[in-house]
């Protein structure tokens, strides 16, 4: 068990280093940060001096080593654009993204399972057909288009919900939350739907397919033969066995919800880390971009690690497997 965790941790470290190296390599093609940092009046000599001050003239391996060394100490330098420490800026923006991801992820999971079960049980009902056709929208329409459509309908035409921003937020220690004010909750609705729609339809279709599969198995037939009620058969026996793959997929999707938030955050001007990243790209704010990519990689690596450990805990077959024994 310990050896397994250590091996996993070592692999994770390698993945992190690889991500850092790849992102560092990409920055060289994004452009020159100097242009955005000085006005058009700056002379070539002044530009060169700033370049030197920022260490952009050093060899790439030197810059990379410096970056990794600082990152290990939690230092990501100072943002070229905002003139503030990157760690502070990200810590300020992270609550917005995590809150949005949490709300839309939870909604997608709950609604996805409920609708999946419903459509599996009432396979021929007209409502099931309607839900299944509607779910195609979630799978096929790009996120930004869904966001703009929602803004058009609910903000411009109906004037019910805000088109942008987070509304009023309340500071709880270092965490800013929009869940405690009316305008904050209203502002969460459209971005959550935009971000979670794809996950919702994915989970729904997965649950439906798994459920249909399980309902055909022998133990369900036995359960029915024992005279159990429909409710007990569907929810205690069928749904429980359906959920194993769903939990795996949902766990992995948490990472992508946070990463995909970039588009939703841009459309709704949601002040999270995704919007920070997009703005940083346009400005060639290398410290912010590097820190963001490392952070996202870290989230994925941690989630994967947890999922691996969960497998280990949940699936007895993995534990029983000893080297050299085979099946």
């Amino acid at each position: 068990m310990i050896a397994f965790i250590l091996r996993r941790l070592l692999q994770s470290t390698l993945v992190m280093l690889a991500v850092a190296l790849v992102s560092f390599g990409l920055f060289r093609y994004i452009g020159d940060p100097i242009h955005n940092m000085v006005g058009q009046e700056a002379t070539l000599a002044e530009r060169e001096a700033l370049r030197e001050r920022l260490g952009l003239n050093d060899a790439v391996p030197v810059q990379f080593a410096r970056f990794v060394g600082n990152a290990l100490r939690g230092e990501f330098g100072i943002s070229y654009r905002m003139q503030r420490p990157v760690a502070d800026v990200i810590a300020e923006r992270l609550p917005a993204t995590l809150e949005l991801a949490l709300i839309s992820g939870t909604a997608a999971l709950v609604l996805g399972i409920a609708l999946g079960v419903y459509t599996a049980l009432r396979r021929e009902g007209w409502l099931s057909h309607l839900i299944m056709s509607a779910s195609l929208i979630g799978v096929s329409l790009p996120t930004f288009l869904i966001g703009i459509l929602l803004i058009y309908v609910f903000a411009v035409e109906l004037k019910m919900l805000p088109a942008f921003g987070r509304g009023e937020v309340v500071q709880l220690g270092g965490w800013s939350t929009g869940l405690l004010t009316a305008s904050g909750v209203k502002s969460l609705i459209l971005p959550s739907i935009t971000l979670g729609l794809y996950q919702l339809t994915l989970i729904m279709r997965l649950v439906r397919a798994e459920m249909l599969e399980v309902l055909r198995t022998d133990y369900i037939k036995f359960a029915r033969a024992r005279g159990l009620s429909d409710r007990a058969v569907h929810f205690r026996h069928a749904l429980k066995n359906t959920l194993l793959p769903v939990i795996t997929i949902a766990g992995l999707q948490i990472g992508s919800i946070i990463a995909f938030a970039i588009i939703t955050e841009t459309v709704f001007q949601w002040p999270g880390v995704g919007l920070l990243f997009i703005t940083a790209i346009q400005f060639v704010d290398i410290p912010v971009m590097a820190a963001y990519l490392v952070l996202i990689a870290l989230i994925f690596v941690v989630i994967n690690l947890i999922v691996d450990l969960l497998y280990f805990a949940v699936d007895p077959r993995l534990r029983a497997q000893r080297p050299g024994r085979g099946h």
Partner: protein
Amino acid sequence: MKMTRIAAALTLSSSMLFAGLAGAETLRWSSAGDSLTLDPHSQNEGPTHVMSHQIYDSLVFRDQSMKLQPRLATAWRVTDDPAVWEFKLRQGVSFHNGNPFNADDVVFSILRAKHENADMKGLLTTVVDVVKVDDYTVHMRTNGPNPLLPNNLTNLFMMDKEWSEANKVTVPQNFKAGEETFAVRNANGTGPFKLVSREPDVRTELVRNDSYWGKGSYPMEVSRIVFTPIKSAATRVAALLSGELDFLLDPPVQDLERLSSAKGLVVREGPENRTIFLGMQQALPELRTSDIKGKNPFADKRVRQALNIAINRDAIKRVVMRGQAVPAGIILPPFVDGYTKALDQVTPPDLARAKALLAEAGYPNGFSVTLSCPNDRYVNDEAICQAVTGMFGQIGVKVRLDARSKSIHFAELPKGELDFYMLGWGVPTMDSHYVFHYLVETKSDKGGAWNATGYSNADIDALIAAMTQETDAAKRAAMVAKVWNTVQDEVLYLPLHHQMLNWAMKDNIDFPVQSENYPYFKLLKYKK
């Protein structure tokens, strides 16, 4: 006793009168980008200056008709020594924290803006010394006569010396130091609005400075400003349409019709201080991206003339810019000193003559070249380049278009790495010399920073240098005209158009466009 009471009553009623004029109006506005920093000397950039202009005051500023107006300086003149300017300062002005404003603050601010870390130093290169004469008089010495010094001071904001010392911000942010300075998110100006709160990229809130020195002379009708930058153009427009915003600084061109036909909204327009043009590398023996080897087609004036008359500027205005541009014959915005209608005469397209000129120059079958354009800097920049690519194709010049992000384009351009490029130029000093110094002068350490054409003319360089020190207005105007005539005659650049500015707002707001794109919210009025 009685007299005092009457005087007191008068003061009371007059203050009530002003209170009645200046109601409680909140202005919620947006644009794509936020101010980079509240430190007013750190960055020389539009959105940053827009915010600074609300909180801080400069010595002079340009009003909505682009005239130089007194602000913290009430009068300015050249002293008997032509290299020294004298500025008389406004009395009785105080900073938001209550500190009085005086000559010490001006000396401090000018020297701070000249610091190595300050991007604003570029506008003060001629200033060699700033001296306090008395509490309300300052002398600025330049390296030789500089008749245009006040033009360079419109975005130079006055900071409080005591406040800066107390908060350790006597020099602007140093990126290498790796820490945030106090002035990045805090401000103490003398301006019409005071900072209440600031979350960069999210929300900045200001309230009216009720003890502002200009309270009686400006409308000052806005009592609270809430600024929320919105990056996505569609969302920005939606927020204005849904009534969540009152004012939009940068409505996208494709949505102007929609906005002006929307109930309760109005779009105001005006000329912008920026001209868009194309530049050609004319000095290299051979272009890097052309199929012509051994010679440089752009070096031949007839080729440049042919390209110039191949461009249909009206079509670009109509189709690409949806009417929001003024076709240009010169790379100088109107209302800048040195501009004349005659110079701005647009050459109508003449394809037959263009082809004949090309054949005469020895390129009857045309040639190929790469045109480099930004795709996120100017209004419809990439679409303009696509349009001219087609127009040049009609006379046999095969243009390969390379549209890319501004951070790549503007890194390569001043290094002289481009053969054929798009550039836009605004003139913050309102004088032709600014254009000559950056775009016409021979590229060197001293000037020509953005002259990527390779053009070098010693006579012209001498004229450009001489005009900075010429105090006789008529002689100076003749020098400016002479340089322009040469630039036009040589077809040094291919002018395309002057950009237009559009501000969208609720229709109860009366706020004409300012050509530098600086909304001075103290000037905003509400229709009664």
